[in-house]
């Protein structure tokens, strides 16, 4: 089974600063991997690198079969990213935003309604400009804009931050559902108790390197067995 993400001693520079100083990480399809570690350890950079937004300056980086050192553009439509930034137009309504991002992602704008249902956005909220939404509603709208494109690799940067309990359960259920359908999820989080409940594997990052991997002592087949059941 070819790994969705294969990073080997990958170095990534942000300007002059080596955000990643040699990351080794392999993620298989269907896995839900939690990236944990102190702030500034490089978690977000790993996510952005996998999304093709940051260029690997050294080492290997292959995501969804695409070698990022050669081409960072072709994987982007297959990847869904959600971070602190919503990536929505404040002046447009939620529905308009989701429909636009659907069209932009090559998906059918009609699916926008379904995506907004899945994130449980109230009908009233959908016609409000994003500007007037609460943080939780913004996050749901941002999630809907990502869902509608049906990405194969989810890259979430602290998805639980600033959400109420209901919204967090929703995020977890969506993540698990996506994983069961074969999508792969890589997310960074500080809320370890909740995050570890949903993650199938925990990877610790510090100083721009992977320093711990809960699946390390499990050999691949064992992982497959437990995960497959």
């Amino acid at each position: 089974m070819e790994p969705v993400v294969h990073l080997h001693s990958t170095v990534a520079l942000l300007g002059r600063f080596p955000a990643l100083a040699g990351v080794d990480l392999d993620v298989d399809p269907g896995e839900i991997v939690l990236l944990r570690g102190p702030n500034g350890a490089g978690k977000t950079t790993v996510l952005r690198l996998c999304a093709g937004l940051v260029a690997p300056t050294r080492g290997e980086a292959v995501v969804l079969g695409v070698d990022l050192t050669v081409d960072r553009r072709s994987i982007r439509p297959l990847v869904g990213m959600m971070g602190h930034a919503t990536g929505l137009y404040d002046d447009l309504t939620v529905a308009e935003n989701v429909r636009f991002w659907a069209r932009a992602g090559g998906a059918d704008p009609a699916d926008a309604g379904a995506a907004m249902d899945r994130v449980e956005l109230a009908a009233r909220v959908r016609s409000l400009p994003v500007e007037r939404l609460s943080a939780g509603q913004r996050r749901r709208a941002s999630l809907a804009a990502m869902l509608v494109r049906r990405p194969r690799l989810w890259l979430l940067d602290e998805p639980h931050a600033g959400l109420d309990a209901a919204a967090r359960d929703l995020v977890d259920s969506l993540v698990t559902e996506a994983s069961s359908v074969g999508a792969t999820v890589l997310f960074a989080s500080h809320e370890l108790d909740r995050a570890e409940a949903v993650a199938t594997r925990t990877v610790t990052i510090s100083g721009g390197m992977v320093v711990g991997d809960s699946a390390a002592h499990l050999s691949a087949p064992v992982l497959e067995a437990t995960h497959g059941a």
Partner: protein
Amino acid sequence: MTESVPAPPAVGPTSTSSRGTRVLGAVCLVGLAVTGLYAFVVTGPDVRLGNSVRIMYVHVPTVTAAYCLMIANAGFSIYTLWKKSTFADLAAHACAEVGVVMLGLTLVVGAIWGRMTWGAFWVWDARLTTTALLFLMYVGYLAVRGLPAPPRVRATRSAIVGIAAACLIPVVHKSVEWWASLHQNETVLGKVNPNIEGNQYFTLMLSMVVFALVAVWLTIHRFRVLWLTEQLDEVGVDAAIDERRAEHTGVEVGR
């Protein structure tokens, strides 16, 4: 293998000049002296232009050098985008900067020449206007280059502005030419270098060559200064990576 601490700057050459540039520098100085001599002493005033032709010996070469530098800038910019090479990026910057200095000079000298020929510092003459526009466009180029950004981003941005500016040179040239020709008080000069002959023509050609060499000499030195600045930053990368790895605090390894 990674050089942990940048080696103290050993004795090595201590400036951007090298044997090649010293020779070129000497040739330039001699050339300038000879041109000056010719311009002021050997050649007489022009039959129609009078003494103002002596300004032409400075005005024409600087504007020609500036144009060549801008074309070089465009060439390097294309190469930067195509091959993503730092060398071309820095070379484009050097060319543009020397080019802007030359364009600035052309404007000042052109104004003086205007003052002499038409009694007014600024005349909406086709060449002067075009030069002024190009000067502004390349000041914009240097402004874009001045923005704080990672080197790769800065290189791409500047390359795009460089290419865009170069694409405009013919358009600006043509439109201003048309525009100036619409005006009644067509300048007496017509073409920039009237068919002066004899040693005046030689002086002009001589000063063209000398100013070209001066431009090349300046660009080389400017390039090397940029190269040094780049190296200064680059040296830090390996050290930064080691520093970064050392930063790894003893975070409890995954269960």
